């Protein structure tokens, strides 16, 4: 691993280190920014390091991906984007060595199990670098317009006079609802999401855009659910089984929706799709615990020494509670997520 790092120039190493430390210091940063910067970094690595074959490049990218993911394990967007880049590199190498389009869906190829072309990454090709850079640019564009691509689907899902419930502040869902509000009149109920109170920010922003909004406490979610037609939430990560790693409180919201048979729609960009599984009820393994002063402020005094206070950030929502995913490439059921994984990530890269 260390000799792959030696291929990186000093400038690149500095950039990676400053990227990692800026993510570690800021507590709240959007996945979009992380994904965008990771693609930018990958593009610089591809253009500035010296590599003679796709195999070396793959090794370098994997090393960097592993370095970044192990520095900040809870930020999955970095790893996901790195895996997309690696798939692009592998595909382009296969195309160059094959001479014709290597269609992974080609039935004949699947039946005869021809994998010789995709395994041969050690051969050097002259035009490979240019082709890869072009595909990376397309990936960058796709990430940049992912929010827009999700919000243009909103009119198909929200009809007039509907009551929509959401929680927390997701920029994707905000854009989704605002796009629908231009043509339809509907009502939104927002749960305030203590202790960050991001839901209050979302409610205010939606109301200022002209949408009828009601702000409720998190405790009233079950009480209000009998009035709701749809639940639309965003998420931090979409896991490989179709489950979600969403902000805390999402599991309770999804359970309440399930009880009232209300569909749960999740809006997420593709860079949030992660090939990792997480054990459902062992929330300790993937959760991030932050400071307890938001739950019980230090001003409470002496009782603090006798009480344990916990403030988890994430929640696991199992795939059977989610009705629909709206990705920037279109809508999908949770059972289809495995297919998207095989389309966008190479199986060798699932473990960076």
């Amino acid at each position: 691993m260390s000799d792959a790092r030696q291929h990186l120039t000093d400038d690149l190493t500095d950039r990676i280190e400053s990227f990692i430390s800026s993510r570690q210091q800021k507590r709240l940063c959007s996945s979009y920014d992380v994904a965008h910067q990771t693609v930018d970094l990958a593009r610089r690595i591809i253009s500035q390091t010296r590599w003679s074959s796709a195999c070396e490049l793959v090794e370098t990218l994997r090393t960097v991906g592993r370095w970044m993911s192990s520095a900040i394990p809870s930020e999955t967007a970095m790893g996901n984007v790195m895996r997309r880049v690696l798939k692009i590199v592998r595909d382009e190498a296969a195309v160059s060595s094959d001479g014709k389009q290597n269609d992974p869906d080609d039935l004949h190829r699947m039946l005869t199990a021809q994998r010789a072309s995709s395994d041969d990454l050690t051969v050097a090709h002259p035009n490979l670098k240019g082709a890869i850079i072009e595909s990376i640019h397309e990936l960058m564009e796709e990430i940049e317009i992912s929010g827009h691509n999700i919000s243009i689907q909103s009119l198909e899902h929200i009809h007039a006079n509907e009551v929509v419930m959401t929680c927390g502040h997701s920029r994707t869902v905000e854009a989704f609802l605002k796009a629908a509000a231009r043509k339809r009149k509907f009502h939104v109920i927002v749960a305030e999401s203590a202790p960050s109170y991001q839901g209050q920010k979302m409610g205010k922003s939606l109301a200022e855009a002209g949408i009828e909004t009601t702000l409720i406490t998190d405790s009233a979610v079950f009480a209000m659910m009998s009035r709701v037609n749809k639940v639309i939430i965003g998420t931090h990560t979409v896991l490989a089984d179709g489950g979600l790693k969403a902000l805390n409180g999402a599991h309770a919201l999804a359970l309440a929706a399930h009880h009232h048979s209300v569909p749960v729609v999740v809006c997420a960009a593709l860079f949030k799709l992660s090939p990792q599984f997480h054990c459902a009820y062992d929330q300790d393994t993937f959760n991030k615990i932050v400071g307890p002063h938001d739950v019980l402020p230090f001003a409470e005094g002496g009782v603090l020494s006798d009480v344990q206070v916990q403030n988890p950030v994430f929640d696991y929502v199992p795939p059977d509670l989610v009705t629909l995913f709206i990705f920037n490439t279109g809508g999908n059921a949770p059972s289809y997520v495995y297919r998207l994984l095989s389309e966008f990530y190479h199986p060798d890269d699932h473990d960076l």
Partner: protein
Amino acid sequence: MRRLVQHGIPCSYVLLNALSYVMKEVSKVFLGAHALLANGYVMSRVGTSLVALVASSYNVPVLFCCETYKCCDRVQTDSFVFNELGDPEDLASAQSNGACSKLEGWRDIQQLNVLNLVYDLTPPDFITMVITEVGMIPCSSVPVVLRVIHSV
């Protein structure tokens, strides 16, 4: 929580958002009630139904502690038809760390309504048992209790 700590019971304190996180370590849930309705629903402080919902999804027994004078013969199926509205300023002023509220000036925004419900209704499918001073009863036995009390 303070009273429990004073009695020497080790306590953990979490917000409702962390319910799914702590529920796997919970073996029983004890809740209080404001009223027991005749159709088996329990009216209690807002948020109780959420706790009962998450507990029942993790198969944790939910026990309500309630005196029999709180049994009433009203029937109700959802939390809207009869409820109380609390002060909306409670939401607007709630802010962690003394930071300024995100909802400053919310009254000026016409489309924004702030709703602070006081009570909510827990359906009987989430309730394992109700503990009263006459014994432990299932929540569907409330009309029986009422009949016994009225006949005495």
